[in-house]
């Protein structure tokens, strides 16, 4: 009887997690129609991070795994953050290329991303 109750509780726990995910997705979808300006992407990614946490803990049961596995996943998250952070930092801190006027003529620098 007790085992059956625990089983039903676990099934209910999973269902609640699933419903939470769907509700968060609907929230994210609704917010995409609201003009949030520069906050649009951070808000969407924050909701995505919450959903990812629910999947990792409730479905993948990461909190019940051994600490070595949890550390390995932390390392993945850290490496991903480093990769994205340094790639963005590289791009946003680039100086425009100033071409030699004697060779090309125009004095205006030509940014990399501006293509004809």
């Amino acid at each position: 009887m007790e085992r059956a109750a625990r089983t039903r509780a676990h099934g209910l726990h999973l269902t609640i997690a699933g419903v939470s995910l769907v509700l968060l997705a609907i929230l994210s979808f609704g917010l995409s129609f609201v003009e949030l300006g520069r906050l649009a992407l951070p808000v969407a990614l924050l909701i995505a991070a919450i959903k990812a946490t629910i999947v990792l803990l409730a479905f993948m049961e990461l909190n019940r795994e051994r600490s070595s596995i949890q550390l390995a996943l932390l390392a993945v998250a850290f490496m991903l953050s480093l990769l994205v952070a340094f790639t963005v930092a590289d791009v946003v801190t680039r100086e425009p290329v100033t071409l030699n006027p004697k060779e090309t003529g125009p004095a205006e620098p030509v940014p990399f991303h501006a293509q004809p």
Partner: protein
Amino acid sequence: MSDAHAEHFFSEEQREQAARLGMWVFLGSESLLFAGLFALYAGYRAEAPALFAVCVHHSERLLGSINTLILLVSSTCAALGVAALRRDTPKRCAAWLGVTILLGAGFLAIKIYEYAKHLHAGIAPGNATTFFSQYTGGRSTPFWTLYYATTGLHAVHVTVGIGVLLFATTGALRGTLNATRAYPLENAVLYWHLVDLIWIFVWPLYYLA
């Protein structure tokens, strides 16, 4: 332990732990595979945010959102399937996995339809299409190339995940997977959850904001 291939393990418990660790390491490597694509997205978006905004505006937001709901529900069903197997109800487990597989197939069908719509509108991998001159003033951005690469790679993972779940479903029905030997299914479903996790981040980046 009668399996000759398992002689190098001290016990079935160790075999299970080794399989679990191996699957998590594999999931980590798959995450880093997509990390490269996410990093490219971040770099190019930082370089030309206005162009990315134009491209996101032309994405199929409704189709992408339906696909998001499909994957979230499928993940829930897969988790309930694992719970059913642990309760020693393999037929119920197979039923949940069957629903998961059908939802995965639905995801792929919508994805193919979405690709067809894009191609019909002139949005293709690479920049030499009329779409860009019409909406971006002739300026190009690798948004759509990244879109096809990321979602295409994700669709490959969904396809593989469906195959793995089909294999697990037959195992549950035949009895080779059961309450005392559930870890192969648990590992297969971990892969499916990763597929869902990746899409959870692909969706806002390419469809919402």
